[in-house]
């Protein structure tokens, strides 16, 4: 009995011993460099593709990206447990102050949010910003409400209850959508505001894009909002939205890129800008950047040089990978600004 116990202990010790020191003897000639990042889930498919392609071109560089959510990305970035972060929402001044050093934002691709609805036998519906805000505030209760009929004169709208569906989980999608509604409706801004999670006055919450889309699909008279990629990939009918120029624009990769181009003139040097309701004729108004976050003065210069090189590739050749995956590529204006801004990172 006792003997077996000691044998067990010895075995344990042996295991620990072999595990503790890294196998130093057989190091390859060029060592593999691993870089860790964490953050937003929305750009995860394109980031994975980028990092895998970059790894093919540079076999000794391995970038690991954990899509744990923007909040988690910012937290890990602040705690310096990852080399870079990613977020669907620019960091607030407060969050930047909490970080141990200055952090730079770099837009990587663009996303958009579309209003999806379930009303049978109507042509693609149009929504103005204030109308959407009133619907999501619970003020417009029927589909044949005069406010909806006014912007959709040709549609035969049914006498059907409006059921509002929103995201229940914290998400950049919430932020983009609420940010737009807050810009076009002072009441919405005051009552709800914009964040990754908000206090919705009415409606049911679905988990994730699939949850919202599922509820909308199953409930006649429902209206919700999903990411453009999700709506395109799943053939979900969605409405056109009126932009700052008064045009009703259908969301597409082009109209989303146009929004970023329209906002480029007013883009601040730190890129912490919302491009919802951008001033351009062709711009889709519920569009947004998604950002990668880097420290301006990173301690690890070797990894910093690699990431700057990666960013240069992602902003040029990498952008070509965006459309097939459903992301809108950045416009030239923004890319030029970013190429200059990359020089700010102290190598």
């Amino acid at each position: 009995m006792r003997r077996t116990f000691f044998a067990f202990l010895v075995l344990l010790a042996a295991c620990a011993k072999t595990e503790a020191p890294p196998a130093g003897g057989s190091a390859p000639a060029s060592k593999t460099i691993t870089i860790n990042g964490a953050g937003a889930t929305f750009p995860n498919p394109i980031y994975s593709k980028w990092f895998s392609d970059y790894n093919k071109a540079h076999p000794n560089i391995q970038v690991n990206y954990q899509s744990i959510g923007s909040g988690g990305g910012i937290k890990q970035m602040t705690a310096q447990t990852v080399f870079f972060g990613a977020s669907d929402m620019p960091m607030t001044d407060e969050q930047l102050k909490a970080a141990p050093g200055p952090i730079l934002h770099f837009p990587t691709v663009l996303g958009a949010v579309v209003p999806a609805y379930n009303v049978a036998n109507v042509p693609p519906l149009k929504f103005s910003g204030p109308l959407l805000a009133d619907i999501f505030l619970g003020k417009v209760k029927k589909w044949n409400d005069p406010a909806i009929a006014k912007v959709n004169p040709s549609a035969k709208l049914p006498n059907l209850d409006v059921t509002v569906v929103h995201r229940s989980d914290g998400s950049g999608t919430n932020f983009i959508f609420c940010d737009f509604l807050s810009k076009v409706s002072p009441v919405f801004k005051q009552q709800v505001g914009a964040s990754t999670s908000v206090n919705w006055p009415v409606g049911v919450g679905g988990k994730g894009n699939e949850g919202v889309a599922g509820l909308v699909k199953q409930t006649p008279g429902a209206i919700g909002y999903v990411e453009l990629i999700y709506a395109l990939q799943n053939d979900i009918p969605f409405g056109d939205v009126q932009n700052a120029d008064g045009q009703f624009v259908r969301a597409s990769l082009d109209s989303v890129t146009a929004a970023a181009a329209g906002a480029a003139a007013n883009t601040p040097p730190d890129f912490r800008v919302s491009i919802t309701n951008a001033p351009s004729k062709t711009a889709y108004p519920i569009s947004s950047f998604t950002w990668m976050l880097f420290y301006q003065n990173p301690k690890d210069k070797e990894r910093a040089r690699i990431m700057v090189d990666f960013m240069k590739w992602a902003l040029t050749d990498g952008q070509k990978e965006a459309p097939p995956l459903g992301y809108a590529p950045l416009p030239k204006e923004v890319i030029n600004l970013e190429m200059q801004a990359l020089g700010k990172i102290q190598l």
Partner: protein
Amino acid sequence: MRRSSDDRLFRIVTGIFPMLVLLIAVGIAFELSRQSMLSIRKFGFEFWTGRTWDPVAGVFGGLPFIWGTLYSSLLALILSTPIALGIAIFISELSPRFLRQPLGYLTELLAAIPSIVYGLWGVFVLTPIVRKLELFTPDWLKKVPLFSGPPLGVGMGTAAIILSIMVVPFTSSVAREILKNVPSAQREAAYALGATRWEAIKVAIGYGKTGIIGAIMLGLGRALGETMAVTMVIGNAPVISTSLFKPQYTMAAVIANEFTEAADELYLHALIEIGLLLFIITIFVNALSRLLIWSTQQRRTSVFALTAPEEEPVAA
């Protein structure tokens, strides 16, 4: 000589394990309180009674979540208990011998299904059925608060149904074991007195009452902490209502939904405080069930030898 030292070693080693459990429980309570300090300081007891959950304004009140958790668990218990006991009685008392094994195995299989699968089934199968039922609800019935609200399909009722299905295997398999362990002398005595089959079963149930209450409480623990399946069908709106049709929210669901994107410190602390409340409520409910078991034991001192499950796992 050798033997006694072996015993001592054995006692020490096994003693470490329960200590670990204690350490983990205390550690959880400590960490949850420490990491929710901001919100505890700011809101104090109002966190328990506040009805507003507004991350933008930084106002956090947990009452709708507490209500949703307790109400959905209670409803699930009401739905699942008769079914679970029925299964247990049938398998242990009435079923033909060749059916016993497969039936027991099948009910236990229900417990092995991941909750996300229940959730998906809920979204795609159960929700449309519930919506149809809600649409067919006559107007006079809709005046009853329990059945008021829009026909959405998702809501408290759907969540309670999903939960009860998830709880049934836990309650029924424990209750079955309890009934199996009722000494046959009890039944034989009942038959000897001229009892019918049903009356004999009643005697067996009465004998195992303590354990059966334990089985139900085990199910309650499971229902309180269930997250994924519930959040997919409950509608996730922080509303306090007795209506089965209205979307509501639970504590576990709000943590799962909002934790990943909560970057603001106070917000994060408020979410962790929800976790702390859930921890406290779970302990409280478990203590209450202990008391209940204890009081039935007191009344029936003669059956002290009964094999009531001594430790129910604290479902967090």
